């Protein structure tokens, strides 16, 4: 524990700005993954333990696409779209068969998918890590804001994630599709009786959730090492985010992803060897005080 360093940091603008932006970037990428988890849970009541796999595959697809096309934009698109498609296939082929069954059965199916794809990635891309490298356009020196350091690449990532948060938020509250999705989250049977093809709707939800995770994986690929099994730690963190924010709440996912990002950002200064523990403690405290999460519906 190093509370002195934490205090010193909190009183200098440079440190606050830098650690806040680093918390933002960690949080925003986390949000993209967690948004899918929370959306899928909210609508389908499925706890998608395979979500980290979407993130991993999105990264790998982007890595290969970049190698072939040499365009980061195409790589990101390919990562996101392929995972949207994969989401649909996953939902139709596997998850749709266990709707309404035991949560453990769903867990097992997801667990199987994680195992299978970790190994498939090993077979296709090899067991060693890969590094994608920074696209040329972003190989520029960082910006300095109020004494804090902000890299342009991260500023762009934060921008994209924020844009998606806004689109997702507005889309769910303002558009007819979004309203229907929210209605299906509460009463899918009734929505279906009103003439909405809920099978299609569920597939769309999985496509959006998978696509977001794939997008996160692709966006992060230039700076993170790609390796089989990399989805796991992301999955755990996005779960924490989902639970803290309230299962099914996009706003909650955003808020808690940022909270986790900030806990990391400042926790690493105050509690360098116990940052993870800090996050679990936050999660337990929130589950005890507000089991439904920060933005969750009361049960």
């Amino acid at each position, binding site marked *: 524990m190093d509370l002195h360093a934490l205090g010193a940091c909190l009183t200098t603008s440079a440190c606050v700005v830098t650690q806040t932006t680093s918390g933002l970037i960690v949080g925003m990428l986390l949000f993209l993954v967690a948004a899918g988890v929370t959306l899928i849970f909210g609508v389908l009541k499925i706890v998608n333990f395979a979500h980290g796999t979407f993130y991993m595959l999105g990264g790998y697809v982007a890595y290969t696409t970049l190698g072939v096309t040499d365009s980061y934009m195409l790589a990101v698109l390919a990562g996101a779209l392929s995972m949207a498609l994969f989401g649909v296939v996953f939902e139709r082929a596997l998850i749709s068969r266990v709707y309404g069954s035991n949560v453990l059965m769903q867990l097992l199916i997801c667990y199987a998918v994680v195992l299978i794809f970790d190994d498939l990635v090993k077979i296709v891309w090899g067991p060693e890590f890969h590094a994608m490298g920074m696209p040329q356009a972003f190989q520029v020196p960082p910006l300095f804001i109020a004494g804090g350091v902000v890299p342009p690449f991260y500023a762009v990532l934060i921008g994209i994630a924020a844009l998606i948060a806004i689109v997702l938020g507005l889309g769910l509250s303002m558009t007819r599709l979004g*309203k229907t999705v929210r209605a299906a989250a509460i009463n899918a049977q009734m929505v279906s009786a009103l003439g909405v093809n809920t099978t299609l709707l569920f597939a769309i939800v999985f496509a959006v959730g998978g696509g977001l995770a794939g997008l996160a994986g692709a966006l992060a690929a230039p700076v993170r090492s790609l390796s089989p099994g990399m989805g796991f730690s992301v999955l755990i963190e996005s779960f924490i985010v989902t639970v803290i924010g309230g299962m099914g709440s996009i706003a909650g996912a955003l808020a808690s992803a940022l909270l986790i990002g900030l806990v990391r950002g400042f926790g690493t200064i105050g509690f360098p060897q116990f940052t993870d523990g800090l996050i679990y403690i936050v999660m337990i405290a929130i589950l005890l005080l507000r089991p439904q999460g920060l933005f969750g519906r009361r049960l």
Partner: protein
Amino acid sequence: MTELLRAEGLSAFYGASQILFDIDLSLQEKRTLALLGRNGAGKSTTMKTLAGIVPAGSGRIVFDGRDVTRAPPHTRARLGLAYVPEDRQVFPEHSVEDNLLIAAKSGPDGRRDWTLPRIWDTFPLLANLRARHADRLSGGEQQLLVIARALMGNPLVLLLDEPSEGLAPIVIATISRMLRELGASGATILLAEQNMHFCLRIADEAVVIDKGKVVHHQDTAGLARNEDIRRRYLAM
């Protein structure tokens, strides 16, 4: 007169226990048919089976000349079969207007008679509550809302399951009047009820079911005088 909805030898199960036995029904265009029976007689299950929420065990459902026995609920809805469930099932976190918008679609023949303005006209009470969350409405208001919501789909047939359940007499009167007007304007309605007086004023004819079987079929005026049937199957 054309037949819009017909059930032939319909049976249904909840798990291993059979709820419906060989139900036959026929609903003619622009008519209102009441489905009467005690609590637990199988009215709601019949409605759910017709709407496609409970799968038919055996038998056939023909709607507008098409066999829809195996069709999923949304297909039936798009063919013009609107279902209003017994416990109303509004979308509690959506506003009244959003509840209606989610259900908006044109009818099977492309008609779009029911639009938001017409709903506000027909249900002035809802017009005043359009921005309110549905879970903040009273039971009667919710009942009006779900009927309006069903109409937004411009259906050929309305399946109304116990619209009077749990409502105050004055609210029941409102709903009753509204349903009579709907019927008079040419709507086709299947109305499941245990409140016979409510039905008598709305429906043209009635089918009585008991323990999952059809036990009687008569026009409502006749049924009102048929003490025997009323005592045997409908008395509380």
